[in-house]
């Protein structure tokens, strides 16, 4: 069953959700949000697509892109953690730095963000995998 109305809404919502997820991820350190929540927001957008267009869309178009992502995420989180031992600090020590942008603006960077990005990717990858596997047609 397809609903044109739902499809239009879902398509409109998808980019907004994606942007919102990025916002949650980047601001998570200071406002409500973070990798886990951002990952779930992205996952629910994927699920909305699955509901409106049928699971085939997720399985054929989105899952191949999102599925390998959890391996990348876990590697990223591990690497972020390993930056500690290579600098003589314990595992999972985070480092922060401030980068001046255009004179006045300050951009604060941190390995914690890298770690959070890893968490985000794992959550998205795992959910996309589950959705695409479970949405196979029952035989």
């Amino acid at each position: 069953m397809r609903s044109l109305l739902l499809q239009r809404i879902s398509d409109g919502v998808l980019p907004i959700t994606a942007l919102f997820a990025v916002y949650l991820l980047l601001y998570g350190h200071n406002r409500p949000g973070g990798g886990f929540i951002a990952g779930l927001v992205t996952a629910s957008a994927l699920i909305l697509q699955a509901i409106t267009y049928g699971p085939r869309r997720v399985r054929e178009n989105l899952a191949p892109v999102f599925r390998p992502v959890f391996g990348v995420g876990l590697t990223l989180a591990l690497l972020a953690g390993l930056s500690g031992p290579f600098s003589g600090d314990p595992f999972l020590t985070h480092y922060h730095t401030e980068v001046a942008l255009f004179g006045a603006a300050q951009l604060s960077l941190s390995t914690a963000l890298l770690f959070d990005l890893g968490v985000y990717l794992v959550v998205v990858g795992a959910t996309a995998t589950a959705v695409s596997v479970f949405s196979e047609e029952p035989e």
Partner: protein
Amino acid sequence: MLIWLAFLIGGPFFFAAVALLVARWGGQWSGRVALLAPALVTGLGLWLWAEVSEGARVLVPLPWFPTLGLSASLRVDRWGVFFVLLVGLIGLGVVQYARHYFGLSCRGSFFALLLSFMGSMLGIVLADSLLLLFVFWELTTVTSALLIGFEFQEKDARKGAVLAFLVTSGGGLCLLAGLVLLALLAGSADLSTLEARSSALLAVPAHTAALVLLLLGAFTKSAQFPFTEWLPGAMTAATPVSAYLHSATMVKAGVFLVGRLFPIFSQSPLWEPLLISVGMATFLIAGSRAVRSFDLKQILAYSTAAYLGLIFAFYGYAARAGAQGEILLVANHALYKSALFLLVGWLEKATGTRDLRILLEERWLKKEPWGALLFAIGAAALAGAPLLLSFFAKEKFFQSLLTENLFPYATLLSGTLAVIASALAVTAALKLVVGTFFGPKEPSEKREFIKGHIPRWLLIVPALLLLPQLVGGIAPGWLLSTFLAPGTQWSRGPAFWHEVNIDLLMGLSSYTLGLVLYAVWRRLAYRTGAGSPYQTPEKIANLALGFSSWLGQKVQAGGHPRFLSVLFLSALAALLLGAFLTRSPIPLLLSTGPDLYLAWFPALAIAAAALSILFVPGRIPRLIMLSLSGYGLVVFYSLFRAPDLALTQILVETVSLVLFLLIFRHMPPIGKDARSRPKKVLHGVIALVVGVVMAFLAWQSGIITAPQPDGAEHLARASSEARGQNVVNVLLVDFRAADTLGEITVLVIAALGVTALFRAGRLFFGKKGAPK
């Protein structure tokens, strides 16, 4: 230094990934890439050897979780770098051999596994932290089992892989228990610290338990009695794997560990008797099994176990005199035994068989003179013949057991046993050469089925591996002064010039006895047969498999009411046991905490939704009620001003609701509840008890305020140290990042498991849910 060690250990893993990636252009490319890893290892190993060959030791501290007292420190010393060279040099030969052995049927996954094994082995030999050593130890167990069962379509390969895995991973668990105990006793799991605290440690009687557990790990890995049988079972692996893992490197990990433990435990009262008895028993029993076998690879496998027994016994004797020459023993065996394995692989290609019952009848000497010559050199090394490096190694062992001993006549006893065991090795060597090449009649033309297509490298690689035997035997100067005692000059002549002493007597009598035994075996060979191997490892494996299938049946048969009951009750029991053992008081506070009258509304809604699950029919209505009670929590979190939790709760409820709906489409329609009334009541009671206990715990944790709440400290540190305003997120990614890392790992495993189980279930159960 750390960066080079990271290259050294990580390099093979990196090249393993590359070998998998390039496999799409054909397996040959994987083989070419695979050559780079051992080349890198050898290069770095030679550089490190120059630094530590005189006995220097470099510690590379690597903090891991200092709050838990765990480090991942590395160390570079003579014993470790020697193994690095062993792994690199023999690995180079074996990869080159394997490329030509498999030819066009090279597979990327094979080389990827071989290189991962190489990396794990390097991790073992460069670890200073026993914990790190254990992690890599288990990695070698896994990669070895996967390589043994590489041809998993064949039943024997699967059986061999399961047996090897269960025996060696069982030993690995003993090793883990031993190192935990050791860390508790000595306050550290770092080898360098343990060495310094050795005498204090040995004063505690409980150290013997730790020692026995650690040695069990070493004995299983090195296929010592009574765990020998997994090694012959592992011979289903391809010949390059047998040569590399099951003779040159992995089975030596046990010896390596004993070498590492030697400075810590050698003065323990248990060290000498345990190592000598197990080592000598294996030397004799595995040696006699080698004499009775007919499969050439089995003969080599048993003689490998026997020689490892010799090294263990050597370490036992060394407790009094000090270990010197252990590198010679290990290098000698690794070189000639891997060469022999590779030669058997060549022989199988040349003659089409490795069964001695067929080869005994045929005369391959004229057709394959070069192969026969190499076989003869390898076998002579196995027998410890003069003019070879092996001769010095054997003498070294004889000398070690002739030192002062445990009790009177012990020297006589161990000397006699050593002579008998060496004679068994001589017999096995004679079988390899005389039995294989000197049969009565010429092989028929039909038997040489692939003659002419055998790549030369199948003989060149073993020849190169045997070269040090000849060099060391004839001109031992440089080679032995490097291997035996660093910095000293070795001034003896070739390995036959000898003063008349007890060593010579023992050597001569072992040769004679070996000849006699060979003659006897030729007479009796067909009558005795190969004999049945003793079954201990197989029994252990069957016991473990039987127990797990029994447990699975007991816990899971009966649907998920039973499964959940077992799960919940075990968790409850663990909780209570923990509270009992730590004697933590179970507080009984019935006061209420900070009250919010508004909270009664979501609370009542949650309870009502949860209760209604019992009364609504069908899956989907129940699921919706469950979700409703979950969304009720969101209101709770909002009332208590926890936006992160509320946001997470909404999203988790939504995603899991949809996932459940997707799964329901695959499930058969819900039937009538078939449980009997008493069973329903029982399940109800269990659910109620578990629910009440959990509610109680949640209640308590909510109203007990610690004198110094964790939260306050985290709030204070979040902004200044972690540069974050949102404490919840700072907790997740910084203060408790290890927990988060564990959680996302679980998530990845779950995603992989869902995919595998779902697909496998479809393959296995077919469409209708009935087993095919």
